[in-house]
């Protein structure tokens, strides 16, 4: 079991290290595809079981929602393909081929989203964003390329100061950026024209799971009637339906290392929160511009 564990973890870690721009779900799927190629089993059932173990191992490295959704998607992909072909070896060939096609498609998703989203940024807009999101960065890059002038406010996003990282990346693009305290969101909201955030996961109700502080921003935006836009790739759609913050499973809220030590979680600060769909104006995904009610439709089409 030790040998079977090592390859996906190593590929996964290596990818995250070598390409900081890759989404963690994509890295997970790539690692799982590699695992699939090496698998020596003869049955679909055996394959599914070993894949589940592999996904568990990956979540022990990175407990984010994205890895979980990537893993679920991959399992679903296996099930769908296995339904079409009863011969296992043929099935495996098709799976590997389709897996590669899928990976090429998702690598284009950020550009698709940027193309859809940048017309919503008007010339002279003031945008508020939260923490560090590569998709938001790509969208703002596309807006700059289409010669729009705008300024950005980024929340500092404690405890890891991801906002500073985002500000640095934005300065490189020559976008005027101001880092603000997380507590200053209510203060700055009246100056802002729109709020643009990424998402770690998009849940079935159309709400999102994102870095802690997103819910606050959404509530302030709603109170001041500012549009709240979310940009996320479609592989982040996850089969959760939280009704409140407590419903989000603990394994997503805290880092993998914290969960491993098994200490009392009431002392820990969660890293993510849930934003309900009533606070979100539009979601920009590679499947198109969606209203929150359209998200569950997409998930149903896939999983049921």
């Amino acid at each position: 079991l030790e040998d079977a564990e090592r390859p996906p973890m190593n590929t996964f870690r290596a990818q995250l290290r070598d390409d900081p721009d890759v989404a963690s779900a994509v890295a997970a799927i790539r690692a799982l595809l590699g695992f699939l190629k090496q698998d020596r089993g003869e049955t679909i059932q055996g394959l599914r079981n070993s894949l589940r173990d592999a996904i568990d191992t990956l979540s022990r490295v990175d407990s984010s929602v994205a890895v979980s959704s990537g893993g679920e998607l991959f399992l679903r992909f296996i099930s769908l393909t296995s339904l079409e072909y009863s011969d296992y070896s043929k099935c495996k060939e098709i799976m590997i081929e389709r897996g590669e096609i899928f990976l090429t498609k998702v690598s284009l998703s950020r550009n698709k989203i940027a193309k859809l989203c940048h017309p919503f940024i008007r010339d002279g807009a003031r945008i508020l964003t939260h923490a560090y999101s590569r998709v938001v960065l790509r969208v703002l890059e596309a807006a700059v390329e289409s010669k729009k002038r705008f300024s950005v406010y980024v929340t500092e996003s404690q405890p890891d100061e991801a906002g500073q990282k985002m500000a640095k990346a934005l300065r490189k693009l020559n976008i005027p950026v101001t880092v603000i305290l997380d507590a200053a969101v209510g203060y700055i909201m009246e100056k802002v024209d729109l709020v643009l955030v990424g998402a770690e996961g998009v849940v079935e109700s159309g709400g999102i799971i994102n870095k802690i502080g997103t819910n606050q921003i959404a509530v302030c935006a709603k109170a001041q009637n500012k549009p709240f836009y979310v940009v996320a790739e479609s592989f982040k759609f996850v089969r959760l339906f939280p009704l409140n913050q407590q419903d989000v499973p603990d394994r997503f809220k805290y880092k993998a290392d914290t969960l491993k030590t098994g200490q009392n979680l009431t002392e820990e600060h969660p890293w993510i929160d849930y934003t309900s769909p009533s606070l979100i104006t539009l979601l920009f995904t590679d499947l198109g511009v969606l209203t929150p009610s359209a998200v569950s439709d997409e998930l149903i089409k896939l999983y049921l």
Partner: protein
Amino acid sequence: MPGAAERGSELSEQIEAFAARLRRGGERPRSEDTARQTLSLLRKIVGHGRWSRAGELMDLIRTEGQRMTAAQPSETTVGNMVRRVLKVIREEYGRLHGRSEESDQQESLHKLLTSGGLSEDFRTPYPSLRANVIEAINEMLIELEGTTDNIAMQALEHIHSNEVIMTIGYSRTVEAFLKEAARELKFQVIVAECAPFCQGHEMAVRLSKVNIETTVMSDAAIFAVMSRVNKVIIGTKTILANGALIAVSGTHTLALAAKHHSTPLIVCAPMFKLSPQFPSEEDSFHKFVSPQEVLPFTEGEILAKINVHCPVFDYVPPELITLFISNIGGNAPSYIYRLMSELYHPDDYEL
């Protein structure tokens, strides 16, 4: 072939004439008429245009469509019809190509995972494609004829005896809707006159001709009267992809007043008014006409010192709308995305 060239240039002239009429925009054309004219033109293009493959036809329709929509961007029905025809072509091609009826044309997570390769390239020629597409367009024209009646048929489900209904301006769809209900019930209608063109007056005259008790009032009195109103029923120019409306100027005020009093706001609009565009920076739905109506030119001196605008349309956000009644039934604004995916193909959202 002299015949084809002649037909080609005649067709081109007709399209140019249509575009010129749209651009001039003098009389306020009925959306249904614009839709019908667009479909007839598109049918001619399919019938007489020079194309041999589905891909070429789609490019041809797209180019002509862009020309027509550029003439008057606020007439969104033109673009909608072009997109409907493009979807019809894709469907007919798919059917002839032997693709199963169930295969989803839309992008979806499911398709992302199971598709084996590149998307359609529409390059195989099929001789019966022309006839099939023309037949489908004829079906759409027939459907167009029946839209107002289909909407009016639903009137009795929504209007009850002794109700007070408020409307704004003049909408032929709402007129038919109220007249159908008036055949069996007695109710009152309050019409907001909708300055500066005051189309509300014409609406009131038409309604009173069928013995509906009508009151006309100024737009400023909308909020004051709202507490006595049971329902607000309005028409619209366009329905946007997020469920919002582009309607006559004054509708947003009406919608806000209705929301404040928790009065249901019902929008009667046929499906051809549904446009896959979102309200964004590049929206060109707004139309400004001569400010003569707002401040007449006879005012002379003051004109040099001020700016006068006369916008025709208003944006109404989806949260203020309760129900859409269309020729295919009643729907909530949050369901619009689904209706859109049935009418148009995502690749055609950008013409």
